[in-house]
């Protein structure tokens, strides 16, 4: 080593030699040396570790598939579990009766987008507005897709007689599978009632006697009169809003901010069962 070289600070003799440093004096300065780093890639141990990681991932995927969650025994392609609502319910109304803002939702239980609304929108509304008494949600049947829609709607209202409209509503959407394909045939609807713990005798009587047949027909006419052309359709007060949580929450916030009490449509009051 040339004593005169000042390219690098001299190291005290006691320090261990840097393994990566060349042992020859005056070697190249510290810098990346790609040739050596590529050598690491070719290192068998490194490749083995990568392969092991991939194999472990594949094993994990296999295990995940085996252990994936309970699909609630549904036949649907997208098994889902809608959480129970927190807000109090009164028939088809979800939320406190003295809440200042009223949301109306027109839905058909066979409609896939209505299912999305039940999964995506209603739980968030429940948590942020309904449970806190800021708004209440009234479910209106627009049972237009077919006979099974009408049956499902009647069944839900019969469940409402026993205070479980919204549990049955969730159950219907969890079990939704196609349109007019038998998912909501009568025997299934009665089975759902049993599965959510309803009094079967009372439910069956209500359903078989077509207690809510006329009401469902009325709600459909009402929806058509209001110009509802698809489902789900949401109204906040008198105003139709987009079927998204953002649009509905904005409308609710705006309604809450206005000092005058909001007018609810006079044609229908709160529908309770």
């Amino acid at each position, binding site marked *: 080593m040339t004593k005169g070289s000042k390219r690098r600070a001299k190291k005290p003799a006691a320090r261990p030699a840097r393994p990566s440093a060349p042992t020859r004096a005056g070697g190249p300065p510290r810098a990346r040396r790609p040739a050596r780093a590529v*050598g690491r890639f070719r290192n068998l141990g490194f490749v083995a570790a990568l392969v092991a990681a991939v194999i472990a991932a594949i094993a994990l995927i296999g295990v995940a598939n085996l*252990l994936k969650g309970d699909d609630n025994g549904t036949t649907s392609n997208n098994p889902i579990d809608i959480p129970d609502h927190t807000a109090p319910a009164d028939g088809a109304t979800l939320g406190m009766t003295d809440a200042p803002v009223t949301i109306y939702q027109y839905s058909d239980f066979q409609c896939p987008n209505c299912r*999305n609304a039940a999964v995506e929108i209603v739980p968030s509304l429940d948590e942020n507005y309904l449970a806190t008494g800021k708004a209440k949600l009234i479910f209106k049947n627009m049972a237009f897709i077919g006979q099974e829609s009408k049956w499902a709607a009647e069944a839900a209202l019969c469940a409402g007689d026993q205070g479980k409209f919204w549990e049955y509503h969730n159950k219907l959407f969890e079990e939704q599978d196609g349109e007019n394909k038998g998912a909501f045939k009568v025997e299934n609807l009665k089975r759902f009632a049993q599965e959510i713990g309803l009094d079967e005798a009372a439910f069956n009587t209500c359903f078989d006697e077509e207690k809510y047949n006329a009401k469902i027909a009325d709600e459909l006419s009402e929806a058509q009169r209001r110009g509802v052309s698809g489902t789900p359709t949401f109204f906040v007060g008198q105003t139709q809003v987009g079927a998204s949580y953002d649009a509905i929450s904005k409308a609710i916030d705006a309604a809450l901010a206005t000092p005058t009490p909001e007018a609810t449509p006079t044609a229908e009051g709160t529908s309770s069962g």
Partner: protein
Amino acid sequence: MDKAVESRNAAKRAAAATPLDENALGVGGLARWGALGGLALAAMGVAAYLTYTHYADKPVQCLVGHECQTVQQSEYATMAGVPVALLGGLAATALLVIALSRLRGLPLAVEWASLAAVSLTTMSVAFAAYLTYVELFVLDAICIYCVTLASIFTASWIISLSDTYLTRDISPEPG
């Protein structure tokens, strides 16, 4: 003479002040491991939120899009009852530990951190890819939080690989 002694002393002081070079990270190394630590923290945050909403049975608030609930309530979101997000959080925690150890210069980390990070992120990316496939082709619904975690793991994977490529060998050259 004084000047020569002075400069030799200065050189000795500088040498003494230089940390153990083989453990020190250059600017690039600092950036990479710092980035890995930051990404791991971000992933832990997202995973914590998803885990919390699962156990508290609260709806997931979708900041972007509207299908988060569909994904989080699906059967693919849990493994034997444990939310998959929790697994992601554990992987992110492990990555954070690796990154911090390397930044701290712990001897074990200096030797193994790069390899450990590559293995961990490779596994995470592969699993995240599987879950993304499920979102796109089985559930037909996308959850922004899952997309975020997948992106974080992908970025971590790329950074880990690049670190392995760019870092000098610390093992002696054979021969």
